[in-house]
């Protein structure tokens, strides 16, 4: 713990150093948020195109040929182009939205403030982490405009398709190389970010800020950064090996005597499963990298709006930590249909079922804490409730998929697509929205419009269920995923369901445009917050000015006296006691 404040770096004076190549964690956090917002819009736009095609396959989407002349002759997308859009949708959403926004954006802005630090300890690395991530995004998007477009192998890029080059189809040459470069670059950015998050949490806490006095958000970001550190460190070597199979003619992933499009490939002896092992060792923790920050944000938002702490601060932290540890032991459940040894399937099935225990504990703590609480209903708390709802709905289907015998039937269907979109995609997005509505005043000095926020919530909530619940029914009906058209007899009667989903997707997407309007309008013309602590929170971000000064706390570093969530303590002068308040709390529940 640093006893006294010390200037990590001086306040910038030039525009470039202040807003572009800034060392300030708050600016970097906003930059990450802007990047995630841009990526989310791109990802959502791609999903609209796919959904329109799935509902009305022969419909010519005006202007589509501008995106790809070869992929959309006459503005109707080809099967290959559908797969290219699907790949880019998944990659952009998983990496540049779900990882970037809840972890890198909010974490960068609030983690140092919530621990009582002036900045991250390695601000140059921090700046680099954003710009590296930004370059990664540009490299990925560039694949739309290079050669025959982006890769079509899906965000998981299974070998050997991903490793055989352009013979595999459009985008499988340069598209894959750009994809692997982009993700490799992204890994570097996240590793640099994780380095800063971990050291800030461990070494930069202000006086009095013991580990158990850290808010749940800080714990969530800390646990996530430990996961990120180990997961991205594995994905990067995988990307390097993939690139080498393309550019150097190595045979890491391509087996012998593989014939593609009547061509015998020159590779020998490669292992197709090797890619899956490396990818999913990263891929499953990645699911938790996307969702655990949301758990922290949702807990933080709910506590503030319930005016009481969670049933157990400590158990919630341990549960999130258990999720992180177990997330490495379950990755094989993604490979039940990959020809793995049945004994291995069993070995991965068991921890997959076990991991539901900490997930359930987290959910029960939320529900138990909400029980009897006089919740303040606002856009942030609604999205926090929505997060819980989505997490439960999506999580329940996980029980089915954890068992190999059921997973083999459902794995290649829309059931899995519905499962991960609810539990990881929509839930994490709701966490991002909850964080946005909650912290917007602190980040910008303006309030967001609550009415529009509530409209946004209800439209998104209803819309998301209308999209993703039918996915489960489609999956049970045998609707295979990754098909661009449903011409088989047993699938034709499901097309009306797809049309309904498409309409729901457009409706939900429209709700996001309301959010975008609210965000931009409020940024410039929103109401000024009544004070520095409009939600009457207790953690350190509410102790400082709005928006926080360059060194976060002005002249004096904060001193922490209390747990992060001292609400409704009997005998206290107010219903919330700030962490910085020296007020004596005789009746505070002693959890430590």
């Amino acid at each position, binding site marked *: 713990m640093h006893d006294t404040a010390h200037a990590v770096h001086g306040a910038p004076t030039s525009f470039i150093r202040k807003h572009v190549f800034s060392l300030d964690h708050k600016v970097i956090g906003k930059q990450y948020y802007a990047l995630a917002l841009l990526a989310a819009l791109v990802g959502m736009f791609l999903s609209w195109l796919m959904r329109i095609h799935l509902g009305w396959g022969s419909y010519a989407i005006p202007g589509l040929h501008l995106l790809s002349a070869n992929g959309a002759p006459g503005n109707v997308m080809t099967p290959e182009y559908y797969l290219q859009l699907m790949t880019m949708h998944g990659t952009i959403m998983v990496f540049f939205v779900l990882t970037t926004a809840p972890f890198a954006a909010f974490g960068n802005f609030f983690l140092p403030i919530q621990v009582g630090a002036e900045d991250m*300890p390695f601000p140059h690395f921090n700046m680099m982490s954003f710009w590296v991530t930004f370059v990664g995004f540009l490299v990925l998007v560039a694949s739309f405009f290079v050669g025959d477009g982006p890769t079509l192998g899906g965000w998981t890029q299974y070998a050997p398709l991903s490793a055989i080059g352009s013979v595999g189809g459009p985008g499988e040459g340069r598209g894959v190389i750009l994809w692997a470069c982009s993700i490799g670059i992204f890994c570097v950015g996240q590793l640099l970010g994780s380095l800063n998050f971990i050291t800030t949490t461990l070494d930069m806490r202000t*006086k009095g800020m013991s580990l158990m006095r850290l808010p749940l958000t800080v714990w969530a970001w800390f646990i996530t950064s430990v996961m990120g550190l180990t997961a991205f460190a594995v994905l990067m070597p995988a990307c390097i090996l993939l690139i080498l199979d393309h550019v150097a003619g190595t*045979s890491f992933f391509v087996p012998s005597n593989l014939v593609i499009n009547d061509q015998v490939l020159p590779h020998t002896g490669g292992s197709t499963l090797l890619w899956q092992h*490396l990818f999913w060792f990263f891929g499953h923790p990645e699911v938790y990298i996307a969702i655990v920050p949301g758990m922290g944000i949702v807990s933080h938002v709910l506590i503030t709006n319930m005016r009481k702490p969670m049933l157990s601060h400590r158990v919630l932290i341990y549960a999130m930590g258990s999720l992180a540890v177990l997330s490495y032991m379950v990755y094989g459940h993604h490979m039940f249909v990959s020809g793995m040894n049945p004994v291995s399937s069993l070995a991965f099935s068991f921890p997959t079922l076990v991991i539901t225990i900490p997930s359930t504990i987290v959910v029960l703590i939320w529900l138990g804490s909400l029980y009897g609480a006089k919740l303040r209903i606002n856009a942030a708390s609604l999205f926090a409730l929505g997060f819980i709802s989505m997490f439960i709905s999506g999580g329940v289907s996980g029980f089915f998929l954890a068992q190999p015998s059921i997973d083999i039937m459902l794995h290649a269907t829309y059931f899995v697509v519905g499962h991960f979109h609810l539990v990881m995609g929509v839930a994490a997005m709701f966490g991002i929205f909850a964080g946005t509505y909650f912290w917007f005043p602190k980040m910008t000095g303006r309030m967001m419009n609550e009415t529009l926020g509530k409209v946004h919530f209800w439209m998104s909530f209803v819309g998301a269920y209308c999209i993703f619940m039918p996915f489960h029914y489609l999956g049970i009906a045998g609707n295979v995923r990754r098909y661009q058209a449903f011409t088989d007899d047993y699938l034709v009667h499901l097309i009306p369901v797809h049309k309904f989903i498409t309409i729901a997707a457009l409706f939900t997407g429209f709700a996001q445009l309301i959010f975008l309007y609210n965000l931009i309008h409020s940024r410039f013309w929103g109401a000024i917050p009544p004070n*520095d602590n409009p939600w009457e929170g207790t953690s350190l971000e509410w102790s400082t000015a709005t928006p926080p000064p360059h060194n976060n706390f002005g002249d004096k570093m904060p001193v922490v006296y209390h747990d992060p969530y001292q609400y409704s303590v009997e005998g206290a002068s107010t219903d919330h006691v700030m962490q910085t308040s020296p007020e*004596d709390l005789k009746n*505070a529940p002693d959890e430590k």
Partner: protein
Amino acid sequence: MATTVHEPPKIEPERLPSQGAGNGGWRNLVPADGDLRRVKSYSPPPASTGIWVIMASITMSFAAFTSALIVRQGTAPFQHITLPPVLYLNTLVIIASSVTLEIARRRIAAFMGGRGDKNGDQAANPALWLYITLALGLLFVAGQTFAWVRLRAQGFGLAANISYSFFYVLTVMHALHLLGGLGGMARVIGKLQNATLRRSTLDATSRYWHFMGVLWVYLLLLLWMKL
């Protein structure tokens, strides 16, 4: 409205929870002298924690490469290759560089602490052994480059067979990480010359360098046993 941090906290000893608060725990405790309890007596500087974090990350990357090698070997047997003899010489060089770095670290620590070396020669150039370490590091990289160039000249490139693929990937990745260590050491020398060197920076850099040495020995054993 919240207590703002711009004001110094007002600690009134008579209201301290430690005196009759009755909750029995150590939370909210403020000692009678008005000073907050020290949650942790010592906090390592971020450079010290950071270097462990970096080493953990690199360990994971090389663990991934190692498991890739093992899984790939299970798919199709590797063709045995003979490692270039210069690698063994390079191993001695990198071990020697760790020794010289440790000498440098101790001398600089003594220098920074105002103590001379055993001969009482305080004015001796404290960077001397760092330069020697730097030179040994560069010699190691040169030796590795020599090995790669020789192999390529013999027709054993990256794609010659999977054994060579792994050989190049592992040795080049190690060399790239080692170049980072050399950069760090050059930075330490620069800071030493400017008298802005922190002890934690020196310790972190030397820890990283030793780690590179240990990693190389591990890789050599792996390559020797598996290829």
